[in-house]
């Protein structure tokens, strides 16, 4: 296996609605930023991979238009995943492992604001039996929360603690969309919106962009003093039929965490892609991190949840802390699909 590292990460501020800019206009400053941080241009990039979905833009092949933002003419080696950018990073990591290239640019973006996101998300469900019912994303998450509460695995107080801690952490994150300082007691006084979820249990709807540069071996060491080496990365998927899954557990996360080697050492920082408060509790349990003290210092997806982007942001937030020398070893997690259907776990380390 080649040593592959995240050597640069950049993201936009995440906002409820980008009124004026289109996707390529949102993307260009972030791509400029991620390359500029390591003094690179597109000429130094061997492979470009992006993550997004046409369902957000409401346009077929929307990613092809966004590609203009990286200057793909003359033609470049390029790929796209209709998934979170974390999976675009995975594809790039595989491509680098094959030995053909040493560097990759990974980017992803979300402009969720043009459509009705909870309804748009129904289109990822089984098209014959589930999608025709239009079950919105928040209702599906509420089913999962109810199952967890009824099983006695979590409490509404624990859920509110996740919300309070995440939004408080987000106050130190300049790119966060939702940040505040409120206590659990105050939060629990609010009515349930889609029971058992309260407003604080749900993520904001966000427009935003993120990008990462990956580099192998010497190409990484030459560019930065302390690359964030990917020591393990794995992703697993569960059935698309919610009824076939144990919604109170995340088997796929547990397995991905084992394969990625999460338990192989102490962790200074953990970033979990948990759009809903109860999902952080499920993920902590699956990864054996119930009592970890530094989960989602960025505020996580509860502070900003750009679709197709919030997963790569988790990897970037961990990598940034390693690149800056603030953390030695960390874990980042990304999720996709309803109720944590698919999960990716990435272990990053600073010592090369």
């Amino acid at each position, binding site marked *: 296996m080649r040593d592959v590292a995240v050597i640069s990460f950049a993201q936009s501020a995440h906002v409820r609605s980008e009124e004026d800019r289109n996707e390529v*206009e949102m993307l*260009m400053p972030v791509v400029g930023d991620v390359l500029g941080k390591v003094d690179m241009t*597109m000429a130094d990039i061997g492979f470009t991979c992006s993550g997004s979905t046409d369902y957000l833009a*409401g346009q077929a092949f929307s990613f092809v238009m966004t590609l*203009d933002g990286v*200057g793909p003419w003359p033609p470049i080696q390029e790929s796209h995943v209709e998934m979170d950018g974390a999976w675009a990073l995975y594809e790039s990591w595989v491509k680098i492992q094959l030995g053909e290239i040493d560097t990759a640019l990974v980017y992803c973006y979300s402009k969720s604001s*043009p459509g*009705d996101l909870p309804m748009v998300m129904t289109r990822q469900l089984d098209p014959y039996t589930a*999608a025709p019912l239009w079950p919105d994303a928040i209702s599906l998450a509420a089913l999962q929360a109810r199952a967890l509460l009824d099983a006695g695995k979590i409490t509404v107080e624990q859920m509110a603690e996740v919300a309070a801690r995440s939004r408080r952490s987000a106050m130190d994150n300049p790119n966060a969309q939702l940040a505040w300082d409120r206590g659990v007691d105050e939060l629990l006084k609010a009515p349930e919106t889609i029971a058992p979820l309260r407003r604080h249990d749900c993520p904001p709807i966000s427009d935003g962009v993120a990008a990462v540069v990956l580099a192998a071996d010497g190409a990484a060491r030459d560019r930065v003093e302390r690359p964030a080496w990917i020591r393990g990365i794995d992703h697993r998927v569960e059935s698309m039929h919610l009824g076939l899954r144990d919604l109170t557990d995340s088997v796929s996360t547990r397995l991905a965490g084992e394969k990625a080697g999460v338990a192989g050492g102490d962790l200074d920082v953990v970033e979990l892609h948990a759009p809903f408060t109860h999902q952080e509790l499920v993920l902590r349990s699956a990864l054996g991190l119930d009592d970890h003290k530094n989960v989602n210092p960025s505020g996580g997806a509860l502070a900003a949840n750009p679709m197709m982007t919030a997963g790569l942001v988790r990897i970037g937030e961990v990598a940034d802390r390693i690149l800056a020398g603030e953390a030695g070893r960390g874990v980042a997690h990304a999720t996709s699909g309803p109720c944590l259907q698919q999960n990716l776990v990435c272990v990053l380390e600073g010592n090369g």
Partner: protein
Amino acid sequence: MADLTLPAALRDVEAVRSVRTPARLDYRYTPGTATSRFLHAIEQKRIMGERCPVCRKVYVPPRGACPTDGVPTEEQVELPHTGTVTSFCVVNLQFYGQGMEIPYVSANILLDGSHLPIMHLIQEVQADKVRTGMRVEAVWVPDEEMGPTLESIKWFRPTGEPDVQVDIPGEDHGTGLGSWVGGSPPEDPRAAQTHGGDA
């Protein structure tokens, strides 16, 4: 397939061959700042392209980025309402939502001073008289129908000027579209025409 014992009511019934699950999603589309500038200008009967600060090519309609250099195209360039047909097709089929009498001509038209052809209709000439290299000009809809849309240009019609030479991409090298001798692109902007190109 495993043996399956169906209840009597489901035996010998016709298989389900199709399911109708209508879906509709509404979007509030944002063209972006560059395309918005273009559309607002169109409303005033002006055609505004945008120039790449690196390669100097002029894109119309602008999307906000130069696909060669990946940088914003922020310099506005007002273009004349004349151009050259770089390719065309004759539509002989009637289809739903067409709104045009057949046969009619759809063409790629390179506006003078720009480096990216726009697609539009050619009218006021017999379909079999349209040719690559033909000089054409925009015909606008009546003022009261003008809006922020390319449909504010009703169609293009011949100017009667002599034809100009059009270079088909790749033709110079005989290597076909998107191929270059030695793997590198020609020096000159590929779409730059002899007529009006100012890059």
